């Protein structure tokens, strides 16, 4: 059994810290910390790793019926107390404390008190009682939960949730302007720092009421008056301004998003307003529609991971594979014609078909096999199959590509039969069909089906004639 061999001052320190912690917790609302103490709080994220490791170790040793070295238990207990106290200091920076922080705080304090209790019992030769075993089990659980809650505070609540379920929900056809549009913008860019657990500037942005209530510098939102709304003012500040929101390094809102917030405030910041309530001439309607269309690049976030080594293996002198931007799983692929072309050059890319966002097959003699592969690239947004021997038969395979935005199919053999396929690409923005067999009737049909489409079927004949006929430069001057 452990000996009572440590010097008494260790006991005094532990006792003192325990009393201090109890005092802090009880008189929380009366405490106003000097900044040095607040600074101590900043060490919480560093120190907390010690009690986690040490307590788990000590508890595990105990549960395996081994003697827990006194020194280990002492240090574990001390570190648990210090962690709880610094954690308390850190927590006082956030007022009011959100649910997450409160849970974390009380569980953390629980861990410290349990550790002290265990220390006390073991100092009094009560190592192997069932009480101690119980304490050890509870400690293990409590350390786990406290750590998890702490993790959620720093990394976000869904940090350990199955990746991506909620954020990417599609905006409904007829969205509520606040809930589905405004709140979504705030949720993506602001609420990470302005929520009950992390209310920077003492501002919560989780409801309209909280926005009106505002933070340190008064209301963030003045109904009907975007110009005097603190929130809008900060969005418009130059990027390098300290007060610009979101702060340095975070992705700023797009112009469209800012305009949506402004217009929504100007129209009265209603939470019941729907898209269908807006007149077509109301600018907000256009902005909201634009945002609904734009949802695309966000959807790249859910693409499966692909390793650089995979990309290196699949790339060759004639197949260039690039990430669209760094840290992105979205790929852009260009294929150039090798001297000895084989469809395998392209169909080998199957492994990464879901990651392909842009695919350039211009000028490659592609046929059915390659088009079957293209059809597998469900996330394709940009497809170039111009200057290829494609006909309606192969083109038909593209049917399922719902994400297509840009399609280049000029100088191919497709005819009016393919118009049916094209009409189904509801998200298509630009389509290049110059030098195909599609007739004027086909083009008209397409334009009716997809009114927002920019359809290019060659240079305007009138303009072309002016270019081709004769140089018109003024001779008088020469």
């Amino acid at each position, binding site marked *: 059994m452990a000996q009572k061999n440590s010097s008494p001052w260790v006991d005094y320190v532990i006792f003192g810290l325990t009393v201090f912690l109890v005092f802090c917790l009880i008189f929380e609302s009366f405490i106003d910390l000097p900044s040095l103490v607040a600074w101590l709080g900043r060490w919480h994220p560093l120190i907390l*790793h010690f009690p986690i490791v040490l307590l788990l170790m000590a508890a595990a040793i105990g549960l395996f019926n081994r003697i827990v070295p006194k020194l280990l238990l002492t240090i574990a207990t001390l570190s648990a107390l210090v962690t709880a106290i610094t954690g308390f200091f850190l927590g006082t920076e956030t007022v009011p404390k959100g649910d997450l922080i409160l849970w974390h705080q009380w569980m953390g304090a629980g861990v410290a008190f349990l550790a002290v209790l265990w220390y006390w019992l073991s100092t009094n030769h009560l190592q192997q009682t069932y009480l101690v075993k119980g304490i050890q089990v509870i400690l293990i659980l409590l350390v786990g939960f406290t750590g998890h809650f702490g993790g959620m505070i720093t990394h976000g609540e869904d940090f350990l949730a199955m990746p991506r379920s909620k954020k990417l929900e599609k905006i409904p056809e007829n969205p509520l302007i606040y809930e589905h549009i405004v709140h979504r913008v705030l949720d993506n860019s602001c609420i990470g720092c302005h929520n009950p657990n992390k209310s920077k500037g003492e501002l919560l942005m989780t409801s309209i009421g909280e926005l009106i209530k505002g933070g340190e510098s008064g209301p963030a939102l003045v109904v009907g008056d975007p110009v005097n709304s603190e929130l809008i003012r900060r969005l418009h500040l130059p990027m390098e301004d300290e007060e610009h929101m979101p702060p340095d390094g975070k992705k700023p809102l797009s112009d469209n998003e800012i305009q949506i917030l402004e217009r929504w405030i100007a129209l009265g910041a209603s939470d019941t307003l729907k898209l269908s309530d807006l007149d077509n001439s109301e600018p907000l309607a256009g902005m909201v529609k634009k945002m609904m269309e734009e949802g695309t690049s966000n959807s790249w976030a859910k693409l499966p991971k692909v390793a650089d080594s995979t990309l290196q293996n699949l790339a060759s*002198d004639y197949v*260039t594979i690039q990430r669209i931007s760094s840290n992105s799983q979205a790929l852009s692929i260009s294929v150039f014609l090798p001297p000895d072309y084989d469809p395998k050059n392209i169909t080998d890319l199957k492994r990464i078909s879901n990651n392909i966002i842009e695919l350039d097959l211009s*000028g490659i003699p592609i046929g059915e096999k390659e088009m079957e592969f293209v059809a597998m690239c469900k996330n394709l947004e940009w497809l*170039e199959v111009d200057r290829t021997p494609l006909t309606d038969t192969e083109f038909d395979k593209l049917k399922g590509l719902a994400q297509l935005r840009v399609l280049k199919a000029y100088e191919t053999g497709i005819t009016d039969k393919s118009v049916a396929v094209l009409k189904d690409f509801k998200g298509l923005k630009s389509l290049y069909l110059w030098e195909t067999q599609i007739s004027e009737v086909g083009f008209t049909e397409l334009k009716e089906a997809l009114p927002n489409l920019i359809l290019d079927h060659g240079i305007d004949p009138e303009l072309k004639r002016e*270019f081709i006929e004769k140089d018109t430069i003024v001779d008088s*001057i020469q």
Partner: protein
Amino acid sequence: MEEDKSKSENPLKVNRRHFFSQLSVGIGSLALGSLLIPDLFKGGKGPLASQPLGIPHFAPKAKRVIYLFQSGAPSQLESFDYKPTLTKRMGEDLPESIRNGQRLTGMTSGQDKFPLMPSAAKFAQHGKSGAWVSEFFPHIAKIADEICIVRSMHTEAINHDPAITFFQTGSQQSGRPSMGSWMSYGLGSENQNLPSFVVLTSRGKGNSQGLYSKLWSSGFLDSKHQGVLLRSGKDPVLYLNDPDGLSRSDKRHLLDHVSSLNKIHHVETGDDEIESRIAQYEMAYRMQMSVPDVMDIKKEPESIIKLYGEDSQVPGTYAANCLQARRLAESGVRFIQLYHQGWDQHGNLPNEMAGQAKDVDQASAALILDLKQRGMLEDTLVIWGGEFGRTNYCQGNFDPKNYGRDHHPRAFSIWMAGGGIKPGITYGETDEFGYNIVKNPVHINDFHATIMNNLGLDHEQLIYKYQGRRFRLTDVAGNVVNDILT
């Protein structure tokens, strides 16, 4: 970024000391990074600071650039900056309050009068956007709705060499990498069989200024990022073709052996340039196949040739180069730099400029139309412009039919199209004399920052450390001109 380079491009140089220094930084930063508050040590550095090379920092709007450089500095007053006041006050001396101490070149510093000279070319508004374009450019006028005219460019240089060097490299003194080299360095190549930076030159009849290969040099960047000059005629790249009697497989063997010798040498010396050399031999080998194919204009149909103008059939003309530029862009060259010489009209401006304009007008406009019908304006940025502007006063004899204009750095016009630039707008404004900018000035650094932005690069993050100093294309300045972006 520097670290990344040394890892990806030169594995052999990772010696023991290097390894340990990286290891300690690695462990140290790991510990700090995870233990302390994430933002505490980040300081001003954005998350991009440790970006890998060869990948855009963010999703780009343009994948490539065609830069139609008008070398010699075309006059903005006879092209895109319409100034009726000059007609009203023709012959009056430029008020000192307007000139405001602007330094002069040696060519007009002896003049005791600076009589205002109106444009010999008439102006009209064109397109839905109502852009002002002079009669020298009838074809460009027809595509006014496709382009963005910037009338408020300015620079510090007043002579050709520093000015063009500034535009191409971001510095008036030579030695820095060219824009195209920076793009090649930052984005990598799109087609492994062609250089990512290609240069085509042509020359008009007007008074011209020299072009030197330093303008497309890679400076301190790896020499594989250097611009490759493609010549007109039978041999676009000198010495690219094998001598008679050498078969392609013999050539392959030869290259394999040379490269194994080079690798031994590299192990011994650790010199980066040896690796570059190996890569360049391989590139040249592939270019033996790819270049003749891209350069073969004969494949173009009659209607396209006519669109660019009859000149486009004559190798070495600006029109032929424009058509070539489109073909190169299609084949995945990142940066295609054209130069057309002959825009330096110190005298005889009306005649010479009309001739220069005739060289470039139709082909430039045709390039835009051709790119557009191929959907390539979606991801190709086209730029048209010279190195500075020209004075609103006359140089030499005052004759409205035959006058000259001197160099003017304070305001000039360029235009851009495609690749994320708003079409159909005119940006920036000069005063009624066309001398000073009164609205939305765009400095060369801003211009560079904007182009890089559209290519998905943060100009503040694409950095190369050389001789103890960090270099950027925009050096320590530059703001993206957001107003002209789509």
